[in-house]
């Protein structure tokens, strides 16, 4: 039986822009959004900047609350972040005052994951991303691709059920981007996770996803929700992939929906 991991039930999100003191205009970012993600599924969320992709991940993680509707995790309402759903950011968000090993071990020092062998376990994960030789380095000594490997190791070290990635390879050059995509698939084949991966690259989604959800902006709603039933690693010449790509690009180039898109 397929188990539902994450459910969005008619989720609407307004941001009240009062805090900036500029205006009190309500910003509707997501409107009446419903979808579900199944256990061990790799879902890519595709959409232009400002369409609410990061907001969706924040809702799943629990540091953003829906204005209306509900977000469920394992059929229970999401309360707050707790280490069962970890997040990887585009700009890494590593702790600069900790060395590489301590960054990976960070989650293992919290109450939820208290582990007496935090360092050893962290080293295992660092090894998994091929960076155990850098355990005593500082964050600023690493390249962008290496930092993102560390961030992924840190997110996996607490053994979360859901891995959330917010345009994780968006700041990398094409070459490291591609090797990181391969690397991520390799890691996930070892540790089965439910993955929500935000990107605005169609090809990245086609390479990684079991399912692609395309959302449009202002307010964010689902334009396409399609399964990609092609085995990985994928050959882009595959007919089915081309079909899906064309379907997505069709929507993306529609001027009414994607004004100012940076895809």
């Amino acid at each position, binding site marked *: 039986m397929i188990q539902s991991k994450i459910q969005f039930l008619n989720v609407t999100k307004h941001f009240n822009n009062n805090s900036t003191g500029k205006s009190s205009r309500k910003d509707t970012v997501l409107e009446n959004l419903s979808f579900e993600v199944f256990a061990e599924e790799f879902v890519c969320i595709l959409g232009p900047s400002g369409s609410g992709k990061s907001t969706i991940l924040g809702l799943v993680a629990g540091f953003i609350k829906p204005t209306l509707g509900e977000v469920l995790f394992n059929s229970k309402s999401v309360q707050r972040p707790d280490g069962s759903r970890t997040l990887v*950011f585009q700009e890494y968000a590593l702790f600069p005052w900790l060395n590489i090993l301590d960054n990976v071990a960070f989650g293992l020092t919290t109450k939820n994951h208290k582990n007496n062998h935090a360092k050893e376990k962290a080293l295992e994960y660092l090894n998994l991303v091929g960076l155990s030789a850098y355990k005593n380095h500082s964050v600023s000594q690493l390249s962008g691709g290496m930092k993102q490997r560390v*961030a992924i190791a840190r997110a996996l070290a607490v053994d979360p059920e859901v891995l*959330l990635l917010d345009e994780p390879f968006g700041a990398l050059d094409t070459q490291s981007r591609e090797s990181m995509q391969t690397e991520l698939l390799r890691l996930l084949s070892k540790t089965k996770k439910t993955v929500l991966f935000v990107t605005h690259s169609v090809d990245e989604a086609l390479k990684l996803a079991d399912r692609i959800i395309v959302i449009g902006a202002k307010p964010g709603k689902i334009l396409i929700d399609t399964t990609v039933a092609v085995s990985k690693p994928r050959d882009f010449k595959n007919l089915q992939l081309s079909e899906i790509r064309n379907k997505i690009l069709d929507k993306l180039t529609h001027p009414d929906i994607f004004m100012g898109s940076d895809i």
Partner: protein
Amino acid sequence: MRIALIRIIFFLVLFLIWYLIVSIGHVPSYIVPSPVLVLDSFYHGFMKGGYLLAIYSSLIRVLTGYFLALSVGIITGILLARYYLLDITFGKIILALQSIPSVAWVPLALLWFGVTDNAVIFIIILEAVLPVALSTKNAMKNIQPNLIRAAQTLGSRGLHLYKNVIIKAMIPELVTGLRLSWAFAWRALIAGELFISGTGIGQTLELGRSLADMAQVMAMIITIGVIGFLTENIFFGSIEKKVRLAWGLEGGN
């Protein structure tokens, strides 16, 4: 090493020029004392213990004021960062207070506390509280939200989050504030001590003036400069540099 040598030679030359001007020009010692007299004043001041006691008393006074100012300043800074209303009201008063030099508080402090230590400590607190409050506020506001979110999603919250992320992220900016506060405290200390009784660097300086002992006045001015330089630049400077390095804000060297 070479830089150190150049510096030593520079100071020796400076002393020589000073000595030559005073002795060839026959400048009276109550206007500009010869460096020999100043050295003599240092020698006797330290041998008889008068200067040591003065420095000790002053350091106790400034440290008392400084640490009180830090406690008040850090709490104020956190409140200003957290409560917008407080920031746009009280926060602006603080900015205005910052443009008042410490001597302006002396008459008020003397009326409230008399010519006592408390008057000086009061002035020090008023001066030193502002930079640390402002830097605490800014440090708190400038924390990258994603650092906190990353920590939260890894299971950190409450005390763990404060101890391991929020405070750590604030430290570089906080250290700069602590250093600035110290510089303010040091200046306020001397300004205040000129007016109170008891022992201290400022009092010794003022005593030198009333006795027309220019050598003592010079000795105290040099003492103020040296202690100020050592604490502000050498002590705080090296802490600041170490922190910036450890936080990856500066490359090697």
